[in-house]
């Protein structure tokens, strides 16, 4: 008979094996740059799961770039930043040369030198001094040198389904302006349409992200930074107010539907499918909702988050374009040219803005979805006038957001252990939404201890 120990060992190793393999991949030497005779090849990222129109628009832009830069060959690679796979992709060396990352990861990656130092190349860009300082710091090292380029910024918004509003007897041109109104509107939608009036992300760290957003909007914070010392501020009246509020929507009003395990992808899916009346997410979500989830433009509306309580603010974030630390100097230079061409020129150069908008529009893709200025406000406003005639998104339906967002105080995401902190808050919001008898005080007290222990670790 086969040795039981040997047999069982053979059966239980896959988990160990997978992690070990990852380690083996991570220890590989950097791959030599595939550049010959002045020609250089770079791999750039294209969003996963795009419709054919969006892929065509992207390919057209690649072609234009290669025509302008005959020495650079651009290859595209499907990539969408995902919190749970990014570290493995980075360590395994499977990321493209140019890849977008969220603001929250910029500082950490720079400190660990896990992305290329582009500062000498960025300094030569004509708009290097024009970045919005609040936005620029996400891509800067502690000494102020910019390693990664901010390509988009957003403030959280309240997305709503205009059709469900109408069906519930609400005026879609007058979205809620207070949290109390959000509650009454959510109840009306749930009662009259049978769909979820208000839904909330709770999974894959997004529960913590949105909970933090709501705490900010009610005057709370989740971390207090004093020099090098970071203290968790989870167990606070603002956070308690938020959780009690969610509890009321869920258990008193029954206006949150039947799914309490949403993440960013699935909540977008269900919202685009008309199953959700309102939800909180980044103000620039329209692109994803339209290109990846088939949203009907007529259904869409977005407004600003109600801010209540002193010191309330709107959580902001954004995207940085980074370059692989393994890219050769020639690839780094070509990558910055690509970032400049594909992401930046449309924000700062009239001809580039029009060309980008026209190409995107010709491919049937959205032009003009709201964002926050990466540069100063004047540059942003001017760039909007260049493409005015090409805007094909329902801009009037976004007015409640675009009219108010610039007046709201923008607050950065928690700076220390952001993703771990969010992960620790996921179960808190899940407990409130799935357990009628959830003890909010105990949940917050426990979360305070958990998060403090996370922040206390080096």
């Amino acid at each position: 008979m086969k040795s039981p120990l040997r047999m069982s060992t053979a059966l239980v190793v896959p988990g160990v094996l997978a992690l070990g393999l990852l380690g083996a991949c991570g220890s590989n030497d950097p791959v030599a740059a595939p550049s010959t005779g002045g020609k250089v090849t770079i791999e750039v990222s294209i969003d996963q799961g795009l419709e054919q129109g969006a892929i065509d628009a992207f390919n057209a832009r690649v072609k234009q770039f290669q025509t302008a830069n005959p020495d650079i060959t651009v290859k595209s690679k499907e990539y969408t930043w995902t919190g749970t796979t990014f570290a493995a992709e980075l360590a395994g060396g499977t990321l493209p040369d140019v890849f977008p990352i969220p603001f929250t990861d910029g500082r950490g990656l720079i400190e660990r030198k896990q992305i290329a130092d582009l500062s000498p190349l960025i300094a030569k860009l004509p708009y290097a001094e024009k970045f919005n300082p609040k936005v620029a710091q996400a891509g800067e090292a502690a000494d102020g040198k910019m390693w990664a380029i901010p390509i988009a910024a957003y403030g959280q918004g309240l997305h709503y389904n205009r059709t469900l509003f109408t069906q519930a007897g609400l005026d879609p041109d007058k979205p809620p302006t207070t949290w109390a109104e959000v509650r009454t509107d959510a109840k009306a939608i749930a009662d009259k349409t049978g769909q979820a009036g208000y839904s909330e992300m709770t999974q894959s760290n997004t529960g913590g992200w949105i909970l933090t957003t709501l705490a900010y909007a009610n005057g709370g914070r989740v971390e207090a930074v004093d020099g090098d010392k970071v203290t968790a501020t989870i167990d606070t009246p603002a956070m308690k107010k938020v959780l009690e509020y969610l509890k009321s929507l869920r258990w008193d009003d029954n206006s949150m539907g039947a799914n309490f395990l949403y993440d960013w992808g699935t909540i977008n899916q269900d919202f685009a499918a008309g199953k959700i009346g309102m939800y909180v997410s980044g103000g620039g979500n329209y692109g994803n909702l339209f290109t990846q989830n088939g949203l009907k433009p007529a259904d869409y509306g977005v407004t600003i988050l109600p801010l209540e309580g002193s010191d309330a603010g709107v959580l902001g974030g954004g995207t940085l374009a980074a370059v692989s630390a393994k890219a050769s100097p020639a690839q780094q230079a070509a990558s910055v040219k690509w970032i400049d061409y594909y992401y930046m020129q449309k924000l700062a150069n009239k001809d580039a803005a029009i060309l980008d908008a026209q190409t995107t529009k010709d491919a049937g893709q959205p032009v003009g979805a709201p964002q926050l200025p990466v540069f100063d406000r004047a540059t942003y406003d001017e760039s909007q006038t260049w493409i005015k005639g090409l805007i094909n998104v329902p801009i009037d339906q976004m007015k409640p957001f675009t009219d108010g967002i610039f007046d709201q105080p923008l607050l950065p995401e928690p700076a220390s252990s952001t993703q771990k902190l969010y992960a620790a808050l996921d179960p808190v919001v899940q407990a409130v939404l799935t357990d009628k008898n959830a003890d909010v005080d105990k949940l917050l007290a426990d979360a305070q201890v958990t998060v403090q222990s996370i922040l206390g670790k080096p």
Partner: protein
Amino acid sequence: MTVLDRPTGGTRHQRRTPRSWLRGGGLSTLIFMLPLLVVFGVFSWFPIGRAVVMSVQTTNLVTAPEFVGLQNFRDVLADPLLWTAVKNTGYFALLALVFGYPLPLILAVLMSEVRRFKGLFSALAYLPVVVPPVVAVLLWKFFYDGSPTGVFNTILGWIHLGPYPWLQNATTAMPSLVLEATWAAAGGTVIIYLAALTSVAPELYDAAEVDGASVLGKIWHVTMPQLRGILLITFILQIIGTAQVFLEPFLFTGGGPANSTLTVLLLIYNYAFANSLGGDYGAATALSIMLAAVLAILSGLYFRVTRSWSTS
């Protein structure tokens, strides 16, 4: 010369020299084994060795690792989530054992009694195994829709039951996962039992019938003892499989609601990958090794205790 003609070591001592080894076909054996050794070494034992090393290091896989002794093991054992995960994994294993273990046996015995359409029943039983696991989970996610219009809730609504929250409640989430896992895995075990049942000598049933045994009596006194060896193996395979449950909680619930379906393997995954800035690979490998050690010890004890029961 036949094998039988060869002088054996017992009858004649022959000194083993490189030359005799070469002449005896040692080199060709080694050459034929080499691809297997290389593949197995590179893809199995090297990663396991790396994981053992990593469990005593702090590393982000980019910068130089730092040796930390047994600190990772201490950190894992001090994590309150570990005990939640162990408890949940035990609960999953228990439910799977109580409901999932007997089901394939019952199905196999019933199917072996069927005279017609045996192939069809076998195919139907095996079909869930053919469906890719991820597809199966996504399909069941639709079934488990907690709204009154969800598939299961609609069906149960016809007999005035529900709606039930299924995955959206800490109490019902784990049993829901077990139900799908049982559906997905039963077919494979059914086929194993069916094959084993064909090896049971029909004379034994005839003899039992002559002795006046009922159908249940025949199953209990003939079928079960004859399947003893297979049952013991499938039992330990079930324990090992359920202790490593990952796919269902990862895809259905992500460990929620409120960590109620967080399993040991999902916790390992979270240690390694939940943080986009580089996970705690040291803790992940430390827990992997602890899990492997516990299962190996458990398996060893199991086989020692049940050695006398086995037919093989």
